[in-house]
């Protein structure tokens, strides 16, 4: 394999990389080599690439600031084509062979970017620039300004193709969730796990150990060895799970957590049998946060030039990846931690021109650094970084702002102190508490007992203290849950004397000093916002966009708050923090969707005869979750023609339609009839066994809820049918009343929707067809089975039910058999019906037939209409109470002005009706449009020979014969229509009873 030289790779060291496994990758079209174990960031640095992107607003050159997931700068487009993912943090991308990445927000190239002219105008582009500039004229908002802003503001390009990756979900329960696999988290997992508790240790990165460095010693051994041993010990515990590449990003009520697992992101391609990512839900009895702390950058002029890095990141790249971030690394700090970076650099033979320490007095570590020959300068602050695409020098100043010296360097390691990583724990709404001694916010945990913190995430920074803290917390948590804990000693490390921290929020200067790198918010922007009255921290955040980028301001929030506090002459806790919300890290939308996308968006429900419909070439339509045949086109037939043919032939011969999807609810009990009396507006006590009745039920507010036929199969046995759409809602409605209101009734019910499948056989030849099917198993004569008659019988060894009910207005039967016999029934009916030219018909033709007959359906039961509106007022029983009765008598529900059901047809027979069109008054007379009602359903009727419709109009029946205008604003159509009786076909019901 041809590999490229890695000019900035150190010859030795690098605990994370495997030098024997070189990997090739490309960045902006140029190929490079890194090692297995590298991140994209470490591999780019190994190749001397510091400039990796352009900033959001000013298009300033940007480099790599951190070595972890809070990275604000190094955002790249990863992969190609449909797999392309913008805004991926180079510091978290694990290198794989053939990785392809591109820089963002630059044109035409990273080194020469046209929009970087924004920098020249930057003095005019302060906080609120867009609000102030793109105000007038308002007609420009959408067509001009929005387009411009979107173009200028976008970071990265989303793939325009559908996401080709697969995602899934998973659920977990545990006694103790430990979030963070650093020293404190490992110690906590160990002591909690040993108690036998069910423990999940969640670590965001691929490796355990957190910020432990090469030189740390635990239990007398190098830290890496302790991590390996601890991992083995945890793996040996049967109830402890270690999850890596597993980032907990959301904390919800009752200790429910959401986490994203990167299953395939570190691979060149995710194997087919695996998802790319998994979204986990974790229900934890107790949780231990061990999320560590994040180093803060230092705010000084030009602090965003590539080569300016967090001191901890410098150390990490040197130690773990054997990368020299520079030949000459200057350090600026206000605390002890950066000294460890200096020691690591010294070990690696990298020159340190100066270590500028803002503190006035030396600490133990600074003395040690001096002894090692490092040039330590106290009371010295960074003033300004120099360079364009890479740092070339650093100017230093004294605390009074006087220039001190200019130091040549190609990298600056900065440390402004550590902020405990409180973003996750604070999602529960409790604001963190300021601790002046460490100049940081720590979580407030004493108010709730199901969460605990360990280590740096609540301000415990010393390694030995972290180990003890984690271990104790794990033990205590297990004990609180009732697990036995053997007394064991915590892992220990040599204690170190910690020096104090010195506040360093804004180093004096007049230039651009960035606070939020990702959203290009400077210290001056914060001052400007404050001057303009955005003094509340929440307003400041929204006006300046500080902390609103995808990194959620993890490196910028505390600096920003401190600068605002200084400007207002307040203390930092007085200014307060903004709210924290999930997700704490960016999560792909696909992961939230999981399996539920495309054809799996919701469960698909198929009837027993689904395969039969497919055989007949049915075009399906979704009815809720059900797949129903919409129509069965013949060769070369379009939808309209197929529907017309099906509706016509049912009235001429016979048709069969799958009605399995109707909700079926079986009721039992001595009080079942009484229960129905209370549910429906009409009476049920006198319904004889073997008869069906149409029923209408109301909601509590008096509007119509659902309708259907209910049959009495036995004295205490009923079968209710509901509309397809409302089946579940009706069952829930019944459960609510049976379980809570009418508990004294002897009534029991359950769904029978899928126990039985059903077909409707309709048309003048329906009886002849079914006679040929059942061959005497049931008497179908008008006398034995009159209209609304019901029979249960045995057909070829199986129970079958036949209901003489009709939606179409034709002679019709509904036949039910157990689910498994659906295909057999369908085939027998089609075979027997061949002699009668039987056809299958779909939901569209069913709709045409019921409109012709004036039967109401979903469009008429739209949740606003009353029984009287539908012309069914005579069904309202006056002899009983039922759900919805009291409120159905409200003034507005009984007003004679309410629109009620009528039929409608065009005056010119060729004209088409539109569902949703409004009946309107004569515009010429009144000068304005006034709606009298609307058309709810329309059909191209073969029986009538023109378009017909049902609708609601004020005055209802009294308008029959009147001509009004139907206006369809969607197409601005106005046609003249005639109001007529809603029953277009067989008003006397002769066909029905034939």
């Amino acid at each position: 394999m041809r590999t490229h030289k890695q000019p900035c790779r150190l010859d030795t060291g690098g605990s994370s990389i495997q030098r024997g496994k070189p990997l090739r990758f490309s960045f902006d079209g140029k190929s490079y080599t890194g090692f297995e174990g590298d991140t994209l960031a470490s591999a780019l640095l190994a190749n001397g690439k510091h400039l990796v992107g352009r900033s959001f607003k000013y298009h300033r050159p940007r480099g790599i600031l951190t070595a972890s997931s809070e990275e604000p700068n190094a955002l790249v487009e990863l992969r190609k084509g449909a797999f392309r993912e913008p805004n991926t943090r180079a510091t978290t991308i694990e290198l794989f062979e053939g990785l392809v990445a591109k820089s963002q927000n630059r044109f035409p190239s990273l080194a020469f970017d046209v929009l970087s002219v924004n920098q020249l105008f930057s003095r005019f582009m302060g906080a609120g620039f867009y609000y102030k500039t793109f105000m007038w004229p308002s007609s420009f908002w959408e067509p001009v300004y929005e387009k411009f802003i979107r173009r200028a503001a976008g970071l990265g390009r989303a793939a325009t193709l559908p996401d080709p990756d697969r995602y899934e979900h998973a659920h977990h329960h545990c006694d103790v969730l430990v979030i963070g696999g650093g020293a404190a988290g490992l110690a906590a997992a160990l002591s909690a796990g040993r108690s036998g508790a069910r423990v999940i240790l969640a670590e965001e990165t691929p490796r355990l150990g957190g910020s432990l460095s090469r030189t740390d010693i635990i239990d007398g051994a190098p830290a890496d060895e302790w991590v390996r041993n601890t991992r083995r010990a945890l793996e040996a515990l049967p109830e402890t799970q270690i999850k890596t590449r597993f980032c907990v990003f959301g904390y919800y009520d009752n200790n429910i957590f959401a986490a994203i697992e990167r299953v395939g992101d570190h691979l060149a391609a995710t194997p087919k049998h695996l998802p790319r990512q998994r979204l986990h839900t974790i229900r934890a009895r107790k949780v231990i946060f061990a999320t560590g702390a994040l180093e803060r950058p230092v705010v000084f002029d030009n602090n965003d030039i590539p080569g300016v890095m967090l001191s901890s990141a410098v150390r990490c790249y040197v130690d773990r990846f054997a990368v020299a971030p520079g030949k000459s690394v200057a350090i600026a700090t206000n605390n002890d931690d950066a000294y460890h970076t200096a020691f690591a650099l010294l070990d690696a033979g990298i020159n340190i021109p100066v270590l500028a320490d803002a503190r006035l007095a030396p600490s133990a570590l600074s003395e040690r650094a001096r002894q090692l020959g490092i040039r330590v300068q106290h009371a010295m602050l960074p003033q300004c970084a120099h360079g364009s695409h890479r740092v070339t020098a650093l100017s230093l100043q004294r605390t009074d702002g006087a220039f001190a010296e200019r130091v040549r360097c190609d990298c600056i390691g900065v440390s402004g102190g550590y902020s405990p990583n409180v973003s996750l724990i604070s999602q529960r709404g409790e604001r963190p508490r300021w601790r002046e001694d460490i100049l940081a916010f720590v979580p407030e945990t004493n108010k709730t007992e199901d969460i605990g913190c360990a280590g740096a995430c609540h301000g415990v920074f010393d390694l030995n203290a972290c180990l003890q803290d984690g271990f104790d917390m794990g033990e205590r948590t297990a004990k609180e849950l009732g697990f036995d804990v053997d007394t064991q000693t915590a892992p220990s490390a040599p204690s170190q004397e910690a020096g104090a921290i010195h506040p360093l929020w804004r180093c004096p200067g007049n230039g651009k000093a960035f606070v939020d790198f990702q959203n290009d918010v400077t210290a001056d922007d914060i001052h400007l916002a404050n001057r303009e009255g955005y003094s509340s921290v929440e307003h400041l955040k929204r006006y300046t966009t500080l902390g609103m980028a995808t990194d959620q301001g993890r490196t910028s929030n505390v600096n920003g708050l401190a600068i605002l506090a200084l400007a207002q002459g307040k203390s930092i806790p007085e200014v307060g923090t903004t709210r924290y919300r999930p997700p704490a890290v960016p999560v792909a939308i696909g992961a939230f969707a999981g399996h539920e996308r495309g054809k799996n968006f919701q469960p698909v429900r198929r009837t027993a005869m689904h395969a039969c419909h497919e055989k007949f070439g049915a075009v399906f339509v979704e009815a809720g979750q059900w797949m129903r045949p919409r129509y069965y086109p013949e060769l070369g037939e379009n939808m309209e023609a197929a529907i017309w043919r099906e509706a016509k032939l049912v009235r001429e011969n016979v048709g069969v339609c799958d009605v399995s999807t109707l909700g079926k609810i079986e009721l039992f009990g001595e009080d079942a009839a009484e229960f129905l009396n209370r549910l429906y507006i009409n009476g049920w006590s006198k319904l004889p066994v073997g008869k069906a009745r149409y029923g209408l039920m109301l909601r509590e507010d008096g509007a119509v809820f659902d309708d259907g036929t209910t049959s009495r199969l036995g004295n205490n046995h009923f079968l209710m049918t509901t509309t397809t759409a409302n089946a579940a809602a009706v069952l829930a409605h019944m459960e609510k009343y049976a379980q809570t209101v009418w508990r004294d009734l002897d009534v029991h019910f359950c769904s029978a929707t899928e126990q039985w499948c059903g077909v409707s056989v309709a048309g003048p030849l329906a009886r002849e067809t079914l006679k040929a099917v059942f061959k005497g198993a049931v008497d179908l004569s008008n006398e034995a089975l009159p209209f609304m008659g019901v029979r249960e019988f045995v057909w070829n060894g199986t129970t079958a039910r036949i209901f003489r009910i009709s939606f179409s207005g034709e002679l019709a039967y509904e036949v039910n058999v157990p689910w498994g016999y659906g295909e057999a029934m369908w085939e027998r009916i089609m075979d027997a019906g061949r002699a009668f030219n039987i056809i299958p018909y779909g939901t569209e033709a069913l709709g045409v037939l019921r409109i012709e007959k004036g039967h109401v359906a979903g469009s008429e039961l739209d949740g606003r209409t009353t029984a009287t509106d539908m012309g069914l007022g005579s069904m309202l029983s006056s002899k009983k109470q039922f759900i919805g009765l009291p409120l159905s008598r409200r003034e507005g529900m009984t007003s004679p002005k309410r629109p009620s059901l009528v039929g409608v047809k065009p005056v010119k027979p060729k004209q088409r009706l539109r569902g949703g069109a409004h009946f309107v008054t004569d515009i010429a007379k009144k000068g304005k449009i006034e709606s009298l009602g609307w058309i709810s359903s329309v059909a191209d009727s073969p029986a009538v020979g023109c378009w017909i419709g049902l609708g609601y109009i004020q005055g209802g029946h009294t308008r029959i014969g009147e001509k009004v205008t139907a206006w369809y604003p969607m197409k601005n159509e106005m046609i003249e229509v005639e109001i007529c009786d809603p029953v277009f076909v067989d008003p006397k019901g002769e066909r029905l009873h034939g």
Partner: protein
Amino acid sequence: MAEQLKIISPLMRSNFSGTARSDAPGVHITDRRGLALVQIFARPGKEESLVRRLDLPMQPGRSRAHSGSPADYLALPLAPKQWMLVSEGGKDGSFSQTIREYIGEFGYVSEQSHSRAVLRIGGTHARELLSKGCRLDLHPRVMSAGACASTTIAHVGVLLHQVDDAPVYDLLVYSGFAQYFWEWLEESAAEFGLASEVEII
């Protein structure tokens, strides 16, 4: 002479049998065709009599296997005064008829044999597979053999019964959703390796 009608099960028209194969399957899924299911309800005041008569479990979430008279069956509690009885045999309606006659005035019987597909899920990764959609805690400290629960997996209503401590589970899924549910299982089990078979009683 009555001819036998062809009977199909909800998964017969899917790719269930034959397509899913693996050399070392971590999950076994069996389509248990031919079980008889009845849902029974106790009449007011007759609950104790019904429970005694049919040897029903009283503890919510715990099943009870009964053998002997009037038949062998497994009883799963569904709700207060409501159970599902599962029998190997009698899907033709004879099992529900037997129960109806046996309990007389103590309760009511709804024939449900065709309403659900029954999928048996076993193998080393059965629990892990279900955790991809099941929000219940299936850990042995919480659920053991005989546990049962009504829940939702992959947005489909499921009656779950833990058959043994291996663990093996029986999932009762509404027939209309069976094919969708199977497709979810197949996709979710891909990483473990999957073997499927049909059990006909």
